[in-house]
């Protein structure tokens, strides 16, 4: 029953997406607005189908319908409700279903937002692109990743339950959906980028339409990555939160290119430059979300040759190739229209800083991408199985990250076009003093290590520069001075500094030791004492848990545990962490005692400032949402000299799709370019 309902819903969604693509494309070719409107309406059918499919799957999970293979593999009667619901995204097929639901949701939001402009070809092309992506994901569920496949033969009375690691912490219920909201959110800007290329309307209009979509997607992606790190810290028991493993890199790569885009897009809005670059970054960001799905879902990481074993690998890789080929092909085709109307006047300017930012983010992404896929390339080329270790990432990423911190301090102080040394001195004076004081304070308090000290000094520099901007803006405009993109961006910058400082401090000044302790025995690490009191075993419906009582610093008792799940061969640890703003004491039970009197093996990890990683991440997300709220700003399409405050009454910029009364060739319609005196290109 569930299988039939679910499969019908998926098929229905697939067909709706296919017909939506067909109708919209026909409307575009024949220039029929009625077809365009009807095409866009298909989005609602796709959303309805996705919702029904997800509801059916949840019903099957909660109702213990073990006739479905997915339920039998990922659920058991003993699984608690929260993890039962979360099992929807615990394995491949379900996560594709969640992806499809979120994609349909985003497409529906797009349809709603642009409902009055459905007959605009730009919106039409974006609809075609978005629905084509939906065709792919619904298609996966019809074929290789069918979540509603039925069990062949006898139906079991109970299932295997979710992977033990996935039913060990409530964060599991939030991390994947938030991450997917980020991943999938980049589909909308991507669709508009493709639409701009297809229609040839390459002015700044499409950028402005998708600005908030990109910010939202970026905020969710940031939150998803931070939640993933937090989950890793709370569950995996190795005391870390970031290991440069391919799964983490897969989520980090689109974040890097997306971040580069959020910065370089401002150069295009202001000065009409970097058009090819911005389109490339958006297409790269979307492609990297697909590549990430390929890396994490196809089994290619186990062995290059494993990914062909499941049909999903070649399917996703093929889709990735299509996306990249379409993007590169369209940019090449439109090359003549993409020429910038100007060039950067001076490297010491806001746009010069954004360019440097982009080169650094590009290099960052390339370094991470190379480290991630190098083992795959090596295996494919000469059959050697290798791993690229953490030293590679640490060594290559550190200089890039430090330079980015420096740029974060200087860039907000730089004016557009050209900066004078005097202006820069004036604006950077007190941030530089702050950095110097922080640096001296760090050295005086005994901190050592060039890399770490540089990070703290540059972090202070960047944070002070951002704070200076916020203070000035708040003095002018009150609380509203904290809103808007530039000010929200500064809050994000402070969040980044908090994360960077916490990251460096916890990884540079951490201590780790393992102790073999009998009941009553104590051990000391980095000024913290731990006393082992004893263990007890508790039987839960879904697992057996061995809990150790450990007193930390003579105070509260913490309880690291080992969990034995009936269907797993290995015990899963549950670390216990004492968190304070100054630092964490992290306890993991390594080996349970054979008898009550026998010693346990306990790992103790002491790391400073870990809590600030999560708080800094939260600040980044809050800052992004404040950036989405419009602050007191002029329309970016207006010339920079327009008096502030007239924005609300200004006539809509002629480039906005659907409102353009006259059709004039693009370069002339570019309001930014047109409003400026002609600039000689080249130098």
């Amino acid at each position: 029953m569930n299988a039939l309902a679910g499969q019908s819903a998926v098929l229905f969604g697939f067909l709706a997406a296919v017909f939506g693509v067909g109708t919209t494309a026909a409307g575009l070719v024949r220039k029929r607005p009625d077809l365009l409107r009807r095409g866009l309406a298909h989005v609602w059918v796709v959303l309805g189908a996705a919702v029904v499919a997800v509801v059916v799957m949840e019903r099957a999970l909660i109702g213990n319908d073990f006739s479905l293979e997915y339920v039998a593999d990922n659920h058991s009667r003993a699984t608690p409700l929260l993890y039962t619901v979360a099992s929807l995204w615990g394995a491949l097929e379900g996560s594709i279903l969640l992806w499809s639901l979120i994609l349909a949701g985003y497409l529906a939001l797009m349809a709603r937002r642009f409902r009055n402009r459905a007959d605009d070809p730009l919106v039409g092309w974006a609809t075609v692109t978005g629905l084509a992506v939906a065709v792919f994901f619904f298609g996966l569920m019809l074929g290789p990743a069918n979540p509603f496949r039925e069990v062949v033969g006898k139906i079991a009375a109970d299932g295997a339950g979710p992977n033990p690691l996935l039913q060990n912490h409530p964060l599991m219920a939030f991390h994947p959906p938030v991450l997917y909201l980020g991943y999938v959110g980049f589909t909308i800007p991507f669709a508009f980028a493709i639409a701009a290329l297809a229609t040839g309307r390459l002015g700044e209009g499409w950028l402005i339409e998708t600005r908030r979509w990109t910010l939202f997607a970026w905020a969710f992606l940031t939150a998803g990555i931070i939640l993933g790190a937090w989950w890793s810290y709370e569950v995996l028991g190795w005391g870390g939160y970031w290991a440069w493993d391919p799964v983490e890199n897969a989520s980090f790569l689109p974040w890097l290119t997306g971040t580069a885009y959020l910065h370089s897009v401002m150069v295009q809005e202001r000065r009409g430059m970097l058009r090819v670059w911005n389109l490339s970054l958006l297409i790269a960001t979307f492609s990297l979300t697909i590549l990430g799905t390929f890396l994490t879902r196809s089994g290619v990481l186990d062995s290059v040759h494993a990914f062909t074993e499941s049909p999903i690998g070649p399917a996703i890789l093929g889709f990735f190739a299509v996306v990249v080929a379409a993007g590169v092909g369209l940019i090449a085709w439109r090359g003549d229209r993409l020429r910038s109307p100007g060039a950067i006047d001076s490297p010491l300017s806001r746009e010069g800083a954004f360019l440097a930012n982009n080169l650094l983010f590009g290099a960052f992404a390339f370094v991470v991408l190379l480290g991630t896929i190098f083992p795959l390339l090596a295996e494919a080329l000469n059959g050697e199985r290798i791993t690229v270790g953490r030293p590679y990432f640490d060594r290559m990423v550190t200089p890039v990250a430090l330079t980015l911190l420096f740029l974060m301090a200087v860039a907000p102080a730089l004016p557009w076009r050209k900066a004078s040394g005097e202006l820069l001195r004036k604006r950077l004076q007190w941030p530089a003093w702050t950095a110097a004081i922080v640096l001296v304070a760090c050295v005086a308090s005994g901190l050592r290590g060039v890399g770490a000290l540089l990070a703290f000094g540059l972090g202070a520099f960047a944070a002070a520069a951002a704070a200076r901007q916020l203070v000035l803006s708040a003095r002018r405009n009150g609380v509203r001075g904290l809103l808007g993109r530039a000010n929200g961006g500064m809050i994000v910058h402070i969040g980044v500094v908090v994360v960077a400082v916490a990251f460096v401090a916890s990884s540079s000044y951490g201590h780790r030791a393992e102790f073999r302790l009998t009941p009553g025995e104590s051990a000391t690490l980095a000024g913290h004492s731990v006393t082992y009191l004893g263990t007890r075993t508790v039987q839960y419906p879904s697992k057996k848990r061995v809990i150790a009582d450990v007193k930390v610093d003579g105070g509260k008792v913490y309880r690291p545990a080992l969990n034995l799940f009936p269907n797993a061969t290995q015990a899963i640890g549950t670390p216990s962490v004492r968190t304070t703003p100054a630092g964490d004491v992290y306890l993991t039970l390594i080996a349970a005692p054979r008898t009550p009197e026998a010693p346990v093996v306990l790992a103790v990890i002491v790391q400073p400032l870990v809590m600030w990683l999560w708080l800094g991440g939260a600040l980044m997300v809050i800052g992004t949402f404040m950036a989405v709220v419009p602050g007191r700003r002029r329309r970016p399409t207006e010339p920079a000299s327009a008096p502030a405050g007239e924005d609300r009454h200004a006539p809509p910029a002629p480039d906005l799709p659907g409102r353009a009364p006259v059709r004039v060739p693009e370069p002339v319609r570019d309001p930014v370019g047109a409003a400026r005196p002609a600039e000689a290109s080249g130098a």
Partner: protein
Amino acid sequence: MGRRRKLVAGLVIAAALGFLLLRAVGDATVYFKTADEAVAERAELGSHRFRIEGLVVPGSVRDGDSEVDFTIRGQQGAIVNVVHKGDVPELFQPDIPVVMEGRFVGQNFESDRILVKHTNEYKAENPDRVEEYPGA
């Protein structure tokens, strides 16, 4: 600066960065061998550091004070004696596949890092991190 000179300068910088990058990757690369491969390539491996994979032979685990001795076997039956410095995790049970990082010393493979290989679906999703068991 002419367009050509800019291009040449860009290429030189890109080549230099590429060289640095490749060297960094090369330095940080750890080879991965099954027990069978390791035994067959014993001479070439010398005292290089690499990762070895095999099944723990049941009954071979002897727990010492600061080290653990055990034997692993490959799919084709090659046998390697392992001396692991440090404690082994609870995850570590006989007859499950394990990966160790270390080098050959005399007759033994001396490891200081154990990665337990999980066999379920989650592996594909999160391979290194889940397997990784930080060494002592």
